[in-house]
């Protein structure tokens, strides 16, 4: 009975991992990059390197400049979202939606003048971040696909744990020099087991972050489907206020912001203004969460017509609501200082490696005998493996490259960067179909390595304020980013070399390659 249970769990682990592996890999990689979302965005807007940060005392004036712009350009919108200047983005980030279906308005303003800011159009790290839970397809579809993948990932983790007879010993087992399949299995176990708490945490909290989207049925029965009423009663947000239908001018925002800043010690992140021009207008100020694990940003609501403070929410959560906030806090890791952030990042890298080695392991375990041609299924998995494991890093590198190389005046420039990302991914996924499998791994790894180097070269060539060109002046961020790119280039170059040297029991390759190649390789090894 015991043996049968383990066999069925092993089966479940292998197949559940395979069917979602490619999407999971993309989610893991882009999600891991999102730990440095703000830094990536900052790198992708190099014009901001010289901009000094905005002092807190200036924020009331800055907010009024944002409103002045929105009154002129978006007076019909139901809600305005005003991103206040932050250390990593010293700009006003305005967003509004006029009516469902119409493209939303989005503009960046210089907080000192209220005029449109002179920065290149880019989605920056936000694109990678959104991709990791919406996959850049309509959000409803993207979120469900990601949620289903996360659930299957949980199943794969649970069945993977059950499958392990010696989970503790696997901590310390890595037989690098044995057969490829053995070392891939060990690599899969090490990356999986070593960071297992992180994998379980990040998958479960990822689903919890969209809890009422995936599992709305508690809200359906207890709140008749009114999610905002649930959020309000749990103390997360301030009460939504409907329009009254009587026109009234919006009171000046300056005094409201002053009052809010005097009430909350954290950094002001965002304002929302709803029902502009109506007597029921509301202004909500949202602050960075207080230091700690939980993601509990303070919200302060003001009456838009009178400017009177209505309520303060976000603190005083009850245990279950606080648990949800803490789980989300763990997922987004805003609390993490540089050292801890790096640890989270490395855990994310291990998660990506766990998924990647699992996928490769599936195909290695199914290499056919010498006299059998590989099945269609195996060929498909092999092609998808290269297309995702190598294709996605290539696409990310091209995304960064496009940011540096596309002409600054190009219309829809930000959109073109994203098109470059997907074009690169499609090309990188198609090339392996035309090449022998092992050759494809080798060539594509070298390609990614080259692309990472090209990013650094383009950065140096295009950015006049680069610290290496000004001998120590300028922002250290550019050095860190380029250093990370060089590390990635080295990693993929190393991988390419190992793949080229490897001459283990790759039964198909020995069959397809010229016989003369074998002694030459043996001599090198």
């Amino acid at each position, binding site marked *: 009975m015991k043996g049968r249970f383990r066999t069925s769990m092993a089966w479940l682990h292998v197949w559940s991992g395979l069917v979602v592996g490619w999407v999971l890999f993309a989610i893991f990689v882009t999600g891991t990059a999102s730990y440095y979302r703000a830094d990536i965005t900052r790198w992708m807007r190099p014009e901001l390197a010289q901009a000094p940060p905005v002092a807190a005392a200036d924020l009331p004036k800055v907010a009024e400049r944002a409103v002045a712009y929105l009154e002129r350009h978006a007076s019909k919108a139901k809600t305005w979202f005003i991103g206040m200047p932050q250390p990593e983005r010293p700009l006003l980030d305005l967003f509004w939606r006029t009516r469902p279906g119409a493209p939303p308005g989005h503009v960046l303003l210089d907080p000192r003048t209220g005029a449109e800011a002179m920065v290149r159009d880019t989605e920056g790290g936000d694109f990678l971040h959104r991709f990791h839970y919406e996959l850049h397809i309509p959000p409803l579809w993207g979120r469900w696909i990601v949620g289903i993948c996360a659930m299957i990932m949980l199943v794969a983790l649970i069945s993977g744990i059950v499958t392990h007879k010696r989970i503790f010993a696997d901590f310390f087992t890595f037989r690098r020099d044995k057969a490829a399949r053995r070392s891939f299995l060990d690599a899969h176990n090490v990356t999986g087991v070593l960071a297992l708490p992180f994998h379980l945490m990040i998958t479960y909290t990822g689903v*919890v972050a969209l809890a009422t989207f995936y599992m709305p049925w508690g809200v359906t029965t207890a709140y008749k489907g009114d999610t905002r009423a649930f959020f309000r009663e*749990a103390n997360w947000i301030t009460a939504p206020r409907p329009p009254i239908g009587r026109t009234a001018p919006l009171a000046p925002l300056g005094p409201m912001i002053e009052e809010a800043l005097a009430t909350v010690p954290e950094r002001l992140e965002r304002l929302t203004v709803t029902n502009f021009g109506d007597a029921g207008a509301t202004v909500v100020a949202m602050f960075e969460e207080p230091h700690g694990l939980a993601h509990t940003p303070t919200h302060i609501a003001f009456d838009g017509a009178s400017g009177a403070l209505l309520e303060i929410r976000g603190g005083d959560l009850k245990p279950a*609501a606080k648990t949800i906030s803490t789980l989300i806090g763990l997922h987004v890791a805003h609390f993490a200082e540089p050292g801890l952030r790096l640890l989270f990042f490395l855990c994310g890298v291990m998660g990506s490696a766990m998924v990647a080695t699992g996928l490769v392991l599936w195909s290695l375990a199914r290499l056919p005998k010498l006299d059998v041609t590989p099945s269609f299924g195996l060929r498909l998995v092999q092609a998808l493996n290269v297309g995702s494991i190598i294709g996605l890093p290539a696409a990310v590198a091209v995304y960064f490259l496009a940011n540096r190389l596309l002409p600054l005046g190009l219309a829809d420039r930000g959109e073109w960067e994203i098109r470059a990302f997907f074009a690169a991914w499609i090309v990188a996924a198609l090339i392996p179909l035309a090449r022998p499998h092992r050759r494809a791994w080798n060539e594509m790894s070298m390609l990614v390595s080259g692309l990472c180097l090209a990013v650094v070269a383009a950065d140096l060539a295009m950015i006049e304020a680069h610290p290496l060109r000004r001998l120590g002046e300028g922002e250290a961020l550019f050095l860190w980013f380029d250093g990370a790119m060089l590390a990635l280039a080295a990693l993929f170059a190393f991988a390419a070399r190992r793949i080229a040297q490897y001459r283990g029991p790759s039964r198909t390759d020995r069959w397809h390659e010229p016989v003369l190649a074998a002694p030459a390789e043996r001599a090198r090894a």
Partner: protein
Amino acid sequence: MATRARPTSLRERASVASRVVLAAGGGYGIAALATALLSLTLPLARPEAVAVATLVSFLLMPAIAVAVFAMRSLRRAALSLAGVALVLGGLLGLAMRGAP
């Protein structure tokens, strides 16, 4: 974990496909019923009950999926899930009649 080069019979394929459907549909269905029921019946403040119920559901679902694949016969898995769903559905019906 290694596969033997033995063709998979149609019967085996159908059995696996049924388990996949049962694990996904049954797992989500039971988790949804349990969330709805617990949201109404847990002896906590309303938002707290909803929060606890929703958190539990995301643990319940993978557990059910694993159980479906662990059970020896497909019929037994289907019957167990149907039984649990029936009980939860009945209780939910009662709870909703009691709720305002």
